[in-house]
């Protein structure tokens, strides 16, 4: 397992920011320019042919020093994980997370790309794995991360008139946006909509 990380680090020293294997999941933190070449390398030379998943994490509410280090591990012997850096580090509010699988032995590799809020874009990986098409659309829909060069970057689960990106931590939890007006139902305000959060 660990040799995957070593190979990637050796081959792409200019892109790899960090490697770790928390809980046995090999994780590579990458500069965004490196995502396409590293995915292609993993697919063609390391056998990670099955594209599992693309998602993202908004680190906005993960305030540094807030709740994280409070909890001691329940079973220190089993738990060899290092606590990740918390919160928004250096303006990198989002983290786009890719998962790939090598089918022969079931090995998993996770790639993480930190993204700045003011430059919220990542090169698309659809050229390497066409299966990432819809997953990238979902990340765009839910987090507003743009995938440069994506052939069809539209919303996928929400409707086209939707305002905002619901899985961002500053999107209100009860901020419903019905497409049709629903009289008498009060919702939390949604940024970019009027105060009632009701439809136009």
């Amino acid at each position: 397992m660990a040799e995957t990380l070593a190979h990637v680090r050796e081959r792409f020293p200019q892109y790899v920011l960090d490697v770790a294997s928390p809980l046995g999941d090999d994780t590579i933190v990458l500069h965004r320019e490196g995502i396409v070449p590293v995915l292609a390398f993993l697919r063609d030379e390391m056998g990670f042919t099955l594209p599992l998943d693309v998602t993202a994490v908004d680190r906005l509410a993960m305030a540094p020093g807030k709740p994280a280090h409070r909890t001691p591990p329940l079973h220190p012997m089993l738990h060899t994980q290092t606590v990740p850096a918390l919160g928004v580090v250096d303006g990198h509010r989002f983290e786009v997370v890719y998962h790939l699988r090598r089918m022969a032995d079931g090995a998993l590799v996770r790639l993480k790309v930190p993204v700045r809020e003011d430059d919220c874009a990542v090169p698309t990986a659809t050229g390497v794995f066409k299966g990432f098409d819809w997953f990238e659309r979902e990340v765009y829909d839910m987090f507003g991360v743009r995938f440069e060069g994506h052939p069809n970057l539209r919303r996928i689960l929400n409707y086209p008139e939707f305002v905002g990106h619901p899985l961002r931590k500053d999107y209100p939890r009860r901020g419903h946006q019905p497409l049709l007006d629903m009289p008498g139902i009060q919702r939390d305000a949604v940024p970019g909509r009027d105060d009632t959060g009701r439809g136009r």
Partner: protein
Amino acid sequence: MSDVATDTPRAQDPSRGEYTTINMGPSHPAMHGTVRIRLQLDGETIQDADIEIGFLHRGFEKMAEAGTWSQVIPYTDRLNYVSPLINNVGYVGAVEKLLGIDVPLRCQYVRVFVSEVARIADHLTAIGAQALELGAYTPFLWALQAREELYFLIEFITGARVTSCYTRVGGLRWDLPEGWQDRYLAAEKVVQKCQADMDALLTRNRIFIDRMADVGTIGPQDAVAYGFTGPCLRASGVDYDVRKNLPYLVYDRLDFDVPIGTKGDNLDRYLVRMEEMRQSMRLCQQVIRDIPEGPVNVDDWRVVLPPKDAVYNTIEGMIAHFEIIMKGIPVPAGEAYYAVEGGNGEVGFYVVSDGSGFPYRVHCRPPCFAIMQGLKDMIVGGLVADVIPTFDGINMIGGEIDR
């Protein structure tokens, strides 16, 4: 990009001839009310298709961030609502991975058992619906009758037919009730009879084969590139099953085979599902034979609720109960990805904790999301009528794909 995708009203490109655009769904009986396909047709042949999902989106991942770790479990019932028990097992597995705990052996066997029962119910529904929409109403009713027996069993075990909510972080809601083996064996007889009847009616049926064979074909390279998993991937001839390739729970101790197709068409997907049901019954039989006695929950009151006797009569029990209910289970900061083999393929949960009792992020990797991407390749070039068996062959579940 095609004109279907960009929403221009209709294609009339002189160089390509004249096409008709029609809407299939969301209010179409075969689209389950949750999918819309805009088809561009040349006569009856599909030139292009734009698949639109999201009609059943309920914000599962946003809701999951609102409660404690345990409060997510009922939401997972609603993902794949035909086999909710597998989602329960997958989600708590991810949280347990993050906690670094192993559940007791009996609990692992019980989780395997309920997963396999749910898988049989899932495949029965898929095959029955596929036959129904090709005009064979009888097998559908048989399948639902057999599925109902399994739902009675699930109700007997969990207290609910569909919204099972059976697993807990660190164990189960309760152990299997007295007499579960006999109940299962009675249900299995009904399922076997139903399967034999369906087999006799469908597998060598000329009409059924004509509609299924060489329709909706997808090759192994394409299937893998699209991220197919589960029966759809195996029907294309790729040997990948989460239960075999990275065994979780006690699947490595049990004996079962993974059926593989050759052509990746609808008939192969049907045959793979038929065989998987037999293998699931084999697994259930082995669980009945091998299941050990013992506790089903880990012995740690920081994770599992204490017994009611201790809650009412001891201060420690009451505090532990209060802490779990009010503050949630203290999951260490970190992230984990945990996968189980669902009815449609690899159901993965990616969970992130910031060290509190509330999930920071819960993401579900739904298998049919990836498979629905490939539907376009499977239907383009075919006839409109072939959309129906192909769409049913991938067994799209609205609750799972739209979350």
